[in-house]
């Protein structure tokens, strides 16, 4: 057992969430207007569609020190742009294997479908994901590689 008293602060992961404008971002808004809570370390970036998210953005987030990245889109079949979330699904499946190859735990990324009416689901997905990433601990694999500022 680690001595808890010597720890400065409990680890809180930094999480980047990409949300599509039509479903998930609205779902996040609904979670807010329903006053549901989820941890403050989730920060949302609005994109028109989940298919706008280049896997590069995910890697960039890990490189810059994010501990987890979650992508939220409309449910399959409900994409505002008809097929966007299918592309997301395939691209992210490929990214998972790439992350695995690089030694980054696949559990640090996730793709979830949250509709505009699912505020409660949005909050529970975020709570669950934060818990999952907290258990994994800090993302050291890629942040160690990045060029530290001032060095």
């Amino acid at each position: 057992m680690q001595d808890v008293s010597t720890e400065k602060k409990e680890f809180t992961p930094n999480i980047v969430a990409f949300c599509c404008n039509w479903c998930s971002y609205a779902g996040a808004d609904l979670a807010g207007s329903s006053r549901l809570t989820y941890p403050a370390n989730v920060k949302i970036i609005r994109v028109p569609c989940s298919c706008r998210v280049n896997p590069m953005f995910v890697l960039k987030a890990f490189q810059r020190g994010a501990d987890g990245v979650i992508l939220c889109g409309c449910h399959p079949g409900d994409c505002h742009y008809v097929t966007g979330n299918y592309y997301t699904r395939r691209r992210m499946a490929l990214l998972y294997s790439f992350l695995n190859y690089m030694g980054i735990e696949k559990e640090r990324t996730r793709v979830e479908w949250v509709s505009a009416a699912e505020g409660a689901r949005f909050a529970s997905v975020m709570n669950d994901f934060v818990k999952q990433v907290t258990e994994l601990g800090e993302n050291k694999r890629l942040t160690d590689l990045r060029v530290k500022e001032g060095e």
Partner: protein
Amino acid sequence: MQRIGVFICWCGSNIAATVDVEKVAEVIKSEPGVVYAANYQYMCSENGQQLVKQAIKEHNLTGIVIGACSPRMHEATFRKAAEAAGLNPYMVEVANIREHCSWIHKDMEEATEKAVILVRTAIAKVKLNAPLMAGESPVVKRALVIGGGIAGIQAALDIADAGFEVDIVEKNATIGGRMAQIDKTFPTLDCSACILTPKMVDCAQHEKIDILSYSEVEDVKGFVGNFNVKIRRKARFVDETKCTGCKICMEKCPSKKGLNEFNMNLNTRPAIYIPFAQAIPNVAVIDPTQCIKMKTGKCGICQKFCGVGAIDYEQKDTFIERQYGAIVVATGFKPISVDNFNEYGYNDNKDVITSLELERLMNAAGPTNGVLLRPSDGEHPKVITFIQCVGSRDTSGCGKPYCSKICCMYTAKHAMLIREKYPDTEVHVFYIDVRTPGKNYDEFFRRAVEQYGVDYIKGMVGKVYNENGKLMVQGSNLIDNEQITIESDLVVLAAAIEPEPSVRKIATLLTASIDTNNFLTESHAKLRPVESPTAGVYLAGVCQGPKDIPETVSQASACAAKVIGLLVKDKLKTNPCVATPDETMCNGCSQCANVCPYGAITYVEKEFRLGGGKTEIRRVASVNPAVCQGCGACTVTCPSGAMDLKGFSSKQIMSEVEAICKM
């Protein structure tokens, strides 16, 4: 040099109670590029907007960030304000510090810290924003109404009265919908047909309305102002232009054993039929699964007797394509199947019926000509028990979690009508709660109890079973705290209502959002309740949520007002956030065109300078900005990174990621 202005909204106490707005503004002031930071109680108010306009002019701002509610709420407001002050409206970014921050967090320190990060992220993005100009697209001055029930009829009439062409697409052989099946309406006890059928006739006679009955929407392309819709006109095997509705074919048809769907399968109809006497259009249709001629090739009696030669056994489905500026979805509802509720014994006992079946049994045009006779033996029922909330407010997974809203009122109506017509009948109602909000609704319910002596029992029913030909209804009486059993002749189940299942396909075709109960989602629950988040798509009636006739009619008229507001415009501003290729990097590989769901990408041959006076001709992507909807699928697919999305460029998103990760 960038000159960014930041405005932090208190939203009264909505933000200010959990986020230290002054501190946020203070911290942000020292961000590079920020020349002005302010906080104000209500940024969206006239004064707040004035503050923004003034600051833009006074400080010569090149971009602004508003830390306030969701951009889905007021982005347009602030863009307008910026434009009025001479700043390009797309130089505005909104940091969502209400829905995504103050409302979900309790701890002030934590929320303030997050608000600072969110505002920083927006600053990082706005620094990379470029002024954008909205294009224009023409508006087709014709509306499509999907569904010909009272919602669709009302919307169509209102739009047509304003002078615009409307098509009603109805999947059944006649318009009228559920309201046509209803006997009387609450709370006035008006005859449903008497108030509906004149409206149906108005539709048929309106020169601007085209009723496409027995038709379904097959495909939808395009966008607001310019939808291209493919409609399947199902073969009715009767020439609609010739049939006069004389009904001789119905009399002569030898195959009379088809279940009459209009009468909730309580009696039968011929293979060739008109759903009900006042059907619009008053044209027969053949059920090919029942028609002897179509099954065996022998018969043809209806053809022989048809005086105008309207019968055509060879008729095939046809397709038409039409353009519309706006679409109203009014697909309506159906009662849920009560087969799953074994405890009520619906499948085992003929005398356990649903409320809509009772509606037909009490209707003068119904299977019993309006005389209430029980289905099993045709006797007058002496004791009738109603069971409320069958599948409504049911979280067990068997039914629906929501309240169907109309059942309390129609059960009170049924109970009252029965007591009125047959005063010797005993009427019991098992209920969980009686919910009667609405003008004259509670008075109506009280009349049922006080004036008509309907016995309301608070409690749920555990079991309905048959004992010596009597239906035993076993339930609890929570007021007297006892178990009771009522010997009944007829049991009526107030089945929950659910959206008509075909709405699922329509939602997919229209890319309209739908919730887990298959209700279409409105753009904003309070402020935009009849608009779908998909521009140009409007929602009327139960497809959006449970509601009664007055509410449905109001919503339909509201839809019509929205549609008219759209169709009077000659041109619409298009979204300037569209994909754009960097032609110097594009190698014309066609990957982007393959993933574009709108076919917005084509290729052109262009001449490029190579230096040294040489040129080369290359094939490069070209995006049609009027067709591109800005999803960004192409930007990620492009192997050379040539494709980018205005307003959501890769650089912008990367800078947002960096701002969030910079701790």
